[in-house]
């Protein structure tokens, strides 16, 4: 218990309560760079959305500051979400990286786990992160117990290092078998490498995760090494540019676990920034839900090219450390468990070989995109159906460029879908949405079930450009009673930068039958993890309201391979506590009790979370802009197709009166997204400006 007491002392060093001063959260997405500026002293918010500058993201970041008229020199904090590492991995624009590994095992990164990309069709391609000629072996070997079987051959190691340097490698991975059990050889090799290697880009296999499974650990380390120099250069350049504008405080960078770390050290664990964008959005959802009194959420983030789903229980997003970001690309560091379930608004509708209408999984992508983008798309998509049915404002046609008309879209639906199905263009568009809704609801359901929960126990949190267009229909299909539409659905990821916590997660493998565990050693592991986390947060010099430490263990029954995470009340559980908590958790999850079988303790985990001061979300919509009555917030009406055409009122979100209640059919528009309420749906607005929709049951 001593550690928890110290934790409390630690938090007292910080002044709790409101944020003082000004913060900017800036998230770089695929198309837009979003900014949320928050001035805590006046509870004032400014927003900006500018095009992302893919060649050098920092330019877009500065553009966003300009667009919001933010004086960088006056800022207390900038929190930044970047896709630099994500894009580099997915597009394989990586630094030249070398690997030194155990004799006999250099092909682990190429052999993978004996898989293929799809269950059917024996085809596909896989390119290892590090090519075979840059993967070298040295004599050394640990046993699974951590005992040394073959000593590290230091002469061979130096030769390998020099060979990789001669091959112009910029970054290095040292990855030895069973280093999670005993890292001595990796540590010694790192000492030698620091003498030979021309820079600091050295990643040790056990450093990011101290967990068995050589492929996953190796890929994680290889990802880290091959993006590390890129991220280092990027944040240094951005910090320099910001410094030119007078910003000299710490720059924080979002990570995939929904936390953030200082730009000064973020490159050390660069792999942790991969997939940080989606995580950031889920953190904002959790924060918004907690303040709204709706802590159990399924997030539904639908954009133009993808749809992501995540689960939040008790305002805590589900986290996984077994995420595969694409085929055979596992990054085993703790990340918010965001699942991509569909292709978004660009999903193509077509008639298949059996004459049935199908929606997705193929997508029009962002180029050419849906017909309504005006970028040359000719195939009907979900977005086009929304446009044709009046759900989206026709003024949003040709968002990027072009001269497409509604008649063009109508003709495409009539010709490509309506004619073969014997339907009008309207009928075809309505059919596309009906099928899309059914499929998306099924996909959300599968995510929910795979995490052991019934979706009906959650509210749907709708964000992304297209989330609010579909959320109420999907909720209805799922039997989910409520939908939460935040004040600013289109900038949720940037909001995540403002509200997310400082967070460090630690996983240490024990992997013993529970009965054979040395509990004192388990307690010592927790203590070491707490120590490490507190030190990491202290290094970041960021104001926090309090420090929270949570512990969990991963357990399984002996003979099983899948793990179950069990939350612990503190860092000093007894053996009996663990047995009992595991049994309870297992039954809750699987509805099966297995008293005959003995449990094993696999990992001990600690999260050290520095909670940031509270942000007043009600400032996201300027109170001064609100109109006194609903009638005054109404911008007009248009015909919208539900089961039939309805003359439907259209409202401007920012003008809704503080205590608005809306009854469907209704459309609520705002800068970058549209909420559709069907007949029978009702929405009320809460103090933070969220719309809480009660969905008409099916």
């Amino acid at each position: 218990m001593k550690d928890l007491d110290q934790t409390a002392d630690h938090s007292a060093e910080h002044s709790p309560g409101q944020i003082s001063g000004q913060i900017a959260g800036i998230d770089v997405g695929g198309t837009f760079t979003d900014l949320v500026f928050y001035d805590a002293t006046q509870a004032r918010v400014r927003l900006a959305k500018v095009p992302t500058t893919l060649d050098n993201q920092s330019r877009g970041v500065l553009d966003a500051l300009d667009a919001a008229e933010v004086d960088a020199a006056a800022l207390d904090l900038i929190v930044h979400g970047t896709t630099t590492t994500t894009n580099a991995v997915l597009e394989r624009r990586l630094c030249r990286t070398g690997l030194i590994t155990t004799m006999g095992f250099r092909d682990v990164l190429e052999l993978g786990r004996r898989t293929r990309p799809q269950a059917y069709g024996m085809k596909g391609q896989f390119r290892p992160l590090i090519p075979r000629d840059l993967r070298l072996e040295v004599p050394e070997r640990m046993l699974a117990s951590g005992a040394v079987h073959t000593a590290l051959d230091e002469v061979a190691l130096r030769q390998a290092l020099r060979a990789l340097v001669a091959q112009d490698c910029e970054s290095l991975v040292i990855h030895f078998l069973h280093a999670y059990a005993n890292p001595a050889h990796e540590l010694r090799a790192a000492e030698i490498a620091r003498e030979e290697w021309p820079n600091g880009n050295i990643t040790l296999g056990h450093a990011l995760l101290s967990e068995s499974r050589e492929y996953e650990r190796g890929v994680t380390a290889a990802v880290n090494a091959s993006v590390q120099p890129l991220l280092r250069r990027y944040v240094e350049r951005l910090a320099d540019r910001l410094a030119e504008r007078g910003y000299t405080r710490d720059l924080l960078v979002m990570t995939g676990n929904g936390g953030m770390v200082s730009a000064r050290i973020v490159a050390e664990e660069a792999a942790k920034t991969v997939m940080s964008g989606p995580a950031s959005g889920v953190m904002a959802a959790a924060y918004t839900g907690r303040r709204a009194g709706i802590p159990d959420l399924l997030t539904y983030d639908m954009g133009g090219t993808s749809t992501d789903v995540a689960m939040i229980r008790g305002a805590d997003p589900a986290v996984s450390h077994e995420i595969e970001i694409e085929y055979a690309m596992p990054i085993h560091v703790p990340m918010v468990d965001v699942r991509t379930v569909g292709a978004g608004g660009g999903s193509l509708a077509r008639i298949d070989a059996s004459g049935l209408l199908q929606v997705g999984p193929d997508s029009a992508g962002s180029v050419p995109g849906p017909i309504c983008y005006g970028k040359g798309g000719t195939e009907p998509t979900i977005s086009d159906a929304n446009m044709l049915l009046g759900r989206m404002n026709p003024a949003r046609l040709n968002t990027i460029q072009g001269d497409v008309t509604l008649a063009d879209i109508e003709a495409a639906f009539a010709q490509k879908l309506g004619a073969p199905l014997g339907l009008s263009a309207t009928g075809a568009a309505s059919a596309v949405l009906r099928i899309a809704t059914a499929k998306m609801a099924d996909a959300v359901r599968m995510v929910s079930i795979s995490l052991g929960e019934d979706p009906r126990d959650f509210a749907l949190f709708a964000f992304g450009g297209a989330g609010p267009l579909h959320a109420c229909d999907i909720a209805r299909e799922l039997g989910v009673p409520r939908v939460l539409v935040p004040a600013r659905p289109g900038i949720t990821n940037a909001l995540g930068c403002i509200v997310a916590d400082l967070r460090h997660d630690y996983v240490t493998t024990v992997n013993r039958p529970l009965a054979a565990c040395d509990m004192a050693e388990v307690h010592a592991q927790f203590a070491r993890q707490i120590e490490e986390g507190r030190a990491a947060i202290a290094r970041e010099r960021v104001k926090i309201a309090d420090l929270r430490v949570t512990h969990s263990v991963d357990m399984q029954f002996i003979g099983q391979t899948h793990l179950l995470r069990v939350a612990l009340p503190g860092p000093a559980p007894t053996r009996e506590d663990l047995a009992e908590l595991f049994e309870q958790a297992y039954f809750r999850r699987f509805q099966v009790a297995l008293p005959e079988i003995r449990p094993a303790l696999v990992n001990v985990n600690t999260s050290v979370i520095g909670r940031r001061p509270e942000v007043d979300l009600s400032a996201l919509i300027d109170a001064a802009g609100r109109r006194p009555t609903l009638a005054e917030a109404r911008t007009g009406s248009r015909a919208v197709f539900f089961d039939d055409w309805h003359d439907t009122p259209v409202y401007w979100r920012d003008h809704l009166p503080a205590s608005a209640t809306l009854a469907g059919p209704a459309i609520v528009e705002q800068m970058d997204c549209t909420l559709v309420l069907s007949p029978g749906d009702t929405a009320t607005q809460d103090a933070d400006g969220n719309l809480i929709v009660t969905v008409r049951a099916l």
Partner: protein
Amino acid sequence: MTLDPITLTVIQSGLQQVCDEMDLTFSRAAFSPVIAEANDRSDGIYSAEDGSLIAQGSQGLPVFVGVMQYSTGKIIEMIAAGTVTAPEPGDIYIVNDPYLGGTHLMDVRFAMPVWRNGRIFCWLSNTGHWPDTGGAVPGGFSASATSVEQEGLRLPPVRLFKKGVMDPEIYAIICSNIRVAEQRIGDVKAQAAALYVGEARLTRLLDRYGDALVQEAIAELRSRAAQQMRARIAEIAPGTYRSVAYIDSDGVVNAPLEIRLAITASGDRLSFDFSGSSAPCAGPMNSVLATTLSSVYLAMRHIFPDVPISAGAFEPLEIQRPEGTFLDAQYPRPVSGCAAEVSQRVAEAVFAALVGPLPQRVTASPAGSSGNFALGGEVPEEGRSFVMYQISGGGYGGYAGGDGISNGCSTIGISKAPPVEIMEQQFPVLYHRYALREGSGGAGQHRGGFGLDYEVELLKGNARASFVMDHGRTGPQGALGGGDGAVNEVRVTRGGVTTTPEHLSKAQDIPLVAGDRVRVRTPGGGGYGDPALRDPALVAEDVRLGRYSAEAAERLFRPAPSPQDA
């Protein structure tokens, strides 16, 4: 409600969702890693009349494509004949008899009727691979069994669950006949839970759209799936396409078995004739009819992955019963090799026959073996015994779009290999090598993928090594001028002396002591197209990366001398 095409699509997704949720529930709740992690299981919906397949989960193991329709059909037949007790609501049958529409004994099926208004609307069924069902060797993969009784406990269809409650007496009989019985309860509960989840989801679908409309949709979907498969088959120019595939031996008699296949395309029908294939064999490399049929479906699904799995899709495939051959084994022929090995060779025969007429769709032959190496032993000083399996992949065939995948899973599986670190944690072994098998990919314009090369040492105690592998005598077939992939190689080093098993890829109970080693090199994939047409830059890259020696590359990929030179 009437059946418009949109409702049809929605019901199609709804039925698929029922199956996918059953798959998910089964894996999530299952105890055995082979089900929970390797997904060696499958779930589906079957017709009340004859058990024909209505829909099957998309996450099921490929080997089970279409297979449960035969066991479900048998149960329905036997109920009608009065040889099996008729069901009441809540009853679940258990069956693993290979000769009643099965695979090997370890694939245990559950089947449950879904009741509507006192009548059976349809059946739900699932299969899970149990880690053990008794028999001569742990795990059931005997390389040298000569009758099914040596392979394990054989269950006819009996109601394990009666009115929703498990019959403890039947369960006690099962438990007394299998190894590690105390863990099986976790799988039994999961397997039943999946069916109950399926029932609940299907009931909701039926309540929403009405039984009659769903029934109508099922019939319509069946005919449309047939239409879709016919449209695909029409891509194949009319004619007869022949192939031969070989199994090294049956494990008992050291002589190859032949699969002779003639596929005749005539417009929108495809007929499969296996006559001339080898006679039933003494060892366990026989296949039961259901497995043979499923292997053809599985191969066609690999070729046309966009056609949904249903009885309708199988309609245009006319498979003549291979009576009198080892592909239609009768009691008491041993069959433990059918699902893991013979099935893959049947698929290879289909690929090899159709790659000619469908060069853009079909690949050269993949490694096509599960590469099962079992090591059972004890460490007396620690008082423990163990059974370890190393199931390995190999190279896939090259294809029109590129080179074959290296170290891919078996044709019939989708599971991941266990990490070396986990193997060494659990068993007293040390891997000296886990590497890409250089030079193993068959040469071709698009070369085959590479196999695996591993070597493992027993560190403590003593053990017996068994192998059920294949392609030791002939490599996976190249296509359209491509070369064959490298053959499977097994080397056992005992007391410093290295030997190869007599049956090359199959052996039973080779005794090992601490310090002895086993080295396995798995097959590479077949090459696709004339090797001389391979882009020289790609040949050079493979040499630079050490995948082929310079000498081998020169020999394999050198352009053939032109007629003038000769």
